């Protein structure tokens, strides 16, 4: 068990990559606090972990609200005594050019994908400092390193996550807080399927296109979770400020 006795917060933990990561962290011995706006799915995710013998709970949290981030952090510290791992994973996508994007959607994507990392990390970092260190993992995207069509605000937000990660790694490295991000390629989740819908494309063709990469398939949520596990674990003790690309070779070049 690679995370025995560790306490982890996973945002966006009710579904997709977040849920797979919460389950994997639990199997590896961590206590997991799942944060999400989706209360029904969050409770199901947490109960499933408890039923299989793990320790987990759910806190309904809108990570774009400072007071809710504070409440989440206080609960983790109060109930579990420490926070060793923070997985800032909550995120949404809007598939549109800037001409077709409402100002409201711009603000919403930036708030959930970027501002939430600032709001929650500033609550959690003081606890990690007192404990002598910790690991923060942010979900960026392959589209935080390269551009994608009809995804302007998503690309802007994920590019921001990559550099926010590096800046935080510089600032908090001396306190032994490691900060890294994962750049998944297309991953088999509800969010990926929602993209076909937003673009008005048949889901089958969209998914076939997404699989066109060197490994010939999209990733699974579990494969992203395994990357998060590595970054959270002591095996990555010198790894900080890095962007780990998990995309089946999609960004390595053109095929």
């Amino acid at each position, binding site marked *: 068990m690679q995370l025995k006795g560790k306490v982890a917060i996973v945002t966006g933990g009710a579904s997709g990559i977040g849920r797979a990561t919460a389950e994997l962290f639990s199997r590896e011995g961590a206590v997991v606090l799942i944060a999400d706006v989706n209360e029904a799915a969050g409770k199901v995710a947490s109960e499933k972990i408890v039923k299989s013998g793990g320790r987990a709970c759910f806190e309904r949290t809108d990570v774009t609200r400072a007071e809710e981030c504070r409440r989440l952090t206080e609960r983790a510290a109060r109930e579990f005594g420490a926070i060793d791992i923070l997985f800032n994973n909550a995120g949404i996508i809007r598939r549109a050019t800037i001409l077709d994007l409402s100002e409201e959607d711009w603000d919403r994507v930036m708030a959930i994908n970027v501002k939430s990392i600032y709001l929650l990390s500033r609550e959690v970092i003081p606890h990690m400092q007192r404990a002598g260190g910790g690991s923060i993992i942010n979900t960026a995207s392959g589209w935080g390193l390269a551009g994608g069509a009809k995804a302007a605000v998503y690309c802007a937000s994920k590019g921001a996550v990559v550099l926010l*990660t*590096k*800046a935080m*790694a*510089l*600032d*908090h*490295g*001396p306190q*032994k807080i*490691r*900060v890294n991000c994962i750049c998944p*390629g297309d991953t088999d989740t509800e969010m990926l399927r929602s993209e076909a819908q937003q673009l008005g494309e048949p889901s089958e063709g969209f998914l076939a296109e997404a699989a066109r990469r*060197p*490994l*010939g398939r999209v*990733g*699974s949520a579990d*494969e*992203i979770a*395994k*990357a998060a*596990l*590595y970054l959270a674990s002591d*095996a*990555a*003790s*010198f*790894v*900080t*400020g*890095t962007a*780990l*690309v*998990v*995309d*089946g*070779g*999609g*960004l*390595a*070049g*053109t*095929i």
Partner: protein
Amino acid sequence: MRGLDAKRVLITGGASGIGAATAARFLDEGSVVCVLDRDAEAGHRIQHELSELAGVLEADVSSLEQVQAAFSDAIQLMGGVDVLINNAGISIRHNFLEITPEEWDKVIAVNLTGVFYVAQTAARHMMEHDGGVILQTASTNGVMGYPYYADYNATKAGVIELTRSMALELAPKVRVCAVAPGYVLTPMQRAEYTDEMLEEVNRKIPLRRHAKPEEIAALFAFLASDDAAFITGHVFTADGAETAGGLASR
């Protein structure tokens, strides 16, 4: 790490430093390990230290003939190669204006041509058999500029592009990634530092220390494992956030 038990691993430059730590790590994971090194004396030492090694092969990676002979020996000893840690490399500290053609050729021969010889030999074997994983030692010097190592830096940038191109051509059967370590405190590196020099370098690194060779070994283990099954063509930096900012960050 999942999926490393009984894997057959060949490590070039495996008799010292990062390579030796990586050999020890894969043995811990239950893998079968051969190391290849041109330094016979270091080879004897590692054989003594890691008695479970399946073999220690003496070869200079800049000679295709020697690489091919040593690779055949590795296959004889292990029955095949599933994981290649393409790690052998050298560096010379010198001013750019004073690099001699001989020095330039030597660094390129080991760090780039040698990496290519080993990679191609292993890749041909893996493509004919059950696939595999090739991991190559690049460096943060292949990502950013550093004074006094222009030739070395150029080879490491070359290794990075070689890695990405191999990943595209060899997918999906063989995964190919590079590891770009920052400052690593190998015994050889420690011997070159005074305490003051070590402290000065540590101050430039946000984690305020060098990596231990074991920490780079742990990254190789992760990338070779089933946990990294969707990771290919990636250049993984392990540098304590040294390159997360430029000079301006300090």
